[in-house]
């Protein structure tokens, strides 16, 4: 099978699955704004048909979302920008058709901005994975630069990813459920898991990095703080504020241990 045919097949399969999931999930997503998709009428109105088509399109675009990030250089940038533009266009259309933006352009622009932050988060996660590979190659060739004090420079990209994830996840959680329990569960599970995993990956590539424990904690507080401010939530941090730092420490130590055991096996 040629590369083009394989790529086309991947787009069709992923797009199809994503589209089907879009049809299942997005109408429920719309319920947080209003119920126009659910109750638009038994006979079907143009708005209803357009909404379902857009749900499929957005789902399909999400399904092929990892494919634009598969290349590098200028091609990566062009493909990612095109993918973002198409997704933003389809999302804007569904918002306008169903009144999700409540007739306000600034709300629509805010949604599109959030989508851009989401793209940035995905891109940063991939870039960090590449950086880990480069770090391993440098090490094998004996050209790894000297580590910065406490590993601040090494930990910084991971901390930015933690900040963006904390913001996106908490915002989506609390925006979907104003009563707060969905947001609380997401915040209590996904964000700590993300901090732990970032610590593991950082430890695997750079060993124990004390700076990460402090800046991961700051990143989570800032990320959650933006959500609390933006949604005007009446939430405090309390004793749970120490959890990110603890998980960053445990994750980082686990990653460093994996690294040591790998080194021993190589000897």
């Amino acid at each position, binding site marked *: 099978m040629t590369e083009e045919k394989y790529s086309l097949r991947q787009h069709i399969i992923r797009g199809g699955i994503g589209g089907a999931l879009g049809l299942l999930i997005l109408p429920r997503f719309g319920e947080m704004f209003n119920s126009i998709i659910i109750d638009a009428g038994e006979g079907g109105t143009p708005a209803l048909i357009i909404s379902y088509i857009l749900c499929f399109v957005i789902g399909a675009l999400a399904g092929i979302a990892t494919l634009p990030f598969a*290349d590098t*250089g200028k091609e990566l*940038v062009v493909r990612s920008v095109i993918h973002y533009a198409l997704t933003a266009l389809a999302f804007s259309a569904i918002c306008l058709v169903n009144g999700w933006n409540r007739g306000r352009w600034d709300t629509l622009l805010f949604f599109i901005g959030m989508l851009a932050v989401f793209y940035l988060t995905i891109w940063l996660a991939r*870039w960090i994975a*590449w*950086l880990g590979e*480069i770090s*391993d*190659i440098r090490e094998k060739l004996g*050209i790894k630069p000297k580590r910065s004090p406490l590993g601040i420079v090494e930990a910084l990209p991971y901390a930015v990813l933690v900040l963006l994830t904390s913001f996106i996840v908490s915002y989506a959680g609390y925006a979907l459920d104003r009563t707060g329990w969905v947001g609380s569960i997401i915040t209590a599970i996904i964000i700590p898991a993300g901090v732990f995993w970032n610590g593991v990956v950082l430890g695997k590539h750079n060993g124990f990095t004390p700076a990460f424990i402090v800046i991961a904690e700051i990143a989570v507080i800032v990320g959650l703080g933006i959500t609390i401010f933006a949604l005007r939530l009446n939430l405090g941090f309390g004793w749970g504020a120490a959890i990110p730092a603890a998980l960053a420490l445990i994750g980082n130590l686990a990653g460093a241990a994996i690294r040591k055991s790998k080194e021993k096996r190589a000897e």
Partner: protein
Amino acid sequence: MKVEFIKSPELTEPEITVRAPELTPEISKLIASLTSDEPIRGWHGGEVEIIPLADILRFYTDGKGVSLETEKGVYSVRERIYELEERLPKSDFVRISNSEIVNIRRITAIDLSFTGTVRLTLTGGRLVFSSRRYIKKLKEAVGV
């Protein structure tokens, strides 16, 4: 590993015999390195020069043909890139793009751009670029 040298004046050229209980990947690598480090012939101004592999920074195609670069200069090579890729020792040379093979031992720095392009600095400051597609080969070559 036991290494032995036996002086044999009756031989016309050096002969190497590798004895081992079985052919392991390490032994195959050793044999490959012993058989394929033949120097490369480079043409420069109509004259041919024998260039040791260790001196070569990179091989590249520039539309006119294949060239090799050392710290002293650039030479033309008769082989094609894919032939060189097969012939050169895999532990020392790696293909980093459609048009370029670099000497791993001559890499002095590796940097990652924001778009995922990898920039390699070779001895003397020569900059070359690789894409994500070829990084897998570099990882295999250095044993990551």
